[in-house]
């Protein structure tokens, strides 16, 4: 149910008067100035830099202001391989970002460990410790893919509701904005994944024959 008649809205626009719900204005402002954290972990960062430079021009989306401190950033682009040694620092940086904050996992390594998945020293996806808004596959993803991810995030922000009950998580003062930082263990990070944030997905391959027989 539109708050204002579309015809009237269009008529008013012709005279330079814009009538729109406050949340639309609010989300428009927010989605058009996503400041990413200036932070790269591996080769994906080179593509991230290319996206910000003149050829691909991330400034068209209002996301060109890379901040060198998490306290001024809205978006963390996890660009590259997250080693287990680096993972606690990545989570700590995300914790230091003020709300509302978003996370893009860029590239095969950041979303799953990529070619290093079977290794002992690489985290099998940053979504084990922080909630990820947009995943981009690719090794590395091209700048167009990163721009697509930013646009996807913008659509996500534009769809946010201000009404009570349908507000995004960070509107709730009691909702957690910090996530548990894993500690260095004897053999692995402890815990190996934050169960509140991530659970291993189940697909048909994980279904046992016994379960199928029972059903």
């Amino acid at each position, binding site marked *: 149910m539109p708050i204002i008649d579309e015809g009237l809205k269009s008529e008013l626009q012709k005279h330079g008067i814009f009538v729109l719900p406050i949340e639309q204005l609010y989300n428009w402002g927010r989605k058009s100035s996503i400041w990413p954290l200036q932070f790269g972990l591996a080769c994906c960062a080179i593509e991230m830099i290319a996206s910000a430079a003149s050829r691909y021009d991330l400034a068209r989306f209002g996301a060109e202001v890379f901040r060198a401190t998490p306290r001024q950033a809205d978006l963390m682009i996890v660009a590259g391989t997250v080693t287990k040694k680096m993972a606690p620092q990545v989570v700590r940086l995300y914790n230091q970002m003020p709300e509302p904050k978003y996370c893009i996992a860029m590239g095969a390594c950041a979303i799953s460990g990529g070619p290093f998945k079977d290794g002992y020293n690489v985290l099998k996806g940053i979504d084990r410790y922080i909630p990820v808004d947009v995943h981009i596959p690719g090794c590395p993803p091209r700048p167009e893919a990163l721009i697509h991810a930013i646009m996807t995030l913008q659509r996500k922000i534009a769809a946010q509701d201000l009404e009570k009950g349908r507000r995004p998580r960070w509107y709730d003062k009691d909702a957690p904005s910090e996530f548990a930082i894993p500690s260095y263990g*004897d053999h692995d990070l402890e815990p190996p994944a934050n169960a509140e944030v991530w659970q291993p997905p189940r697909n048909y391959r994980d279904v046992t024959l016994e379960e199928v027989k029972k059903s």
Partner: protein
Amino acid sequence: MEAIEKIKEIAAQGVAGAQIEIINSTPAAQQPALLVDREHVYAVAKFFKEDPRFQMDFCSCVTGVDYLPKGDKPGFIEVVYHLYSVAQKHGPIVLKVRAPRELEQCHVPSLTPLWRGCEFQEREAFDLYGVKFDGHPDLRRILMWDEFTDHPMRKDYAPPADYEWEPTPHDETLQRAAEMHGVIPPTSMAELEKAKKK
């Protein structure tokens, strides 16, 4: 530079008591190496550095190699040094030294006092293979975190069980999935359909 036999002869004359053995590597590398006993490796390295015929002023590479026990032959960790001379534009001389695989006995002398460039590479060998370099000025882990207790490049290293999910398990991964989950998942949709029909 002279043939490896000649180099061995000169080094044996230069360092009294050193037991040096020529190891012929695989044809691909074509780089015979000198295996030196642990007690004399420092003296032999020093000789190569200081002797005017060699002047090996640059140690380009330090690495470890793990050999598991084979039959009744005990296993060992081998540390390999590649020495070059920038002054005389020759090299490499490949020095090898062996230590037992047991962590308490896995000690070799550090060559960092001779070549400062060995420092980080010896730390790496310590981190990944568990070789202790006696005389190293700052022997700490360099790649893994300090709390880590394993040496991951050893062949008997068991990686942590942080393996939960794999969308397309096959071969070794499928085996591992079966071990982790206690089940062998159906590997194809056809197999699952077949099971459903039964």
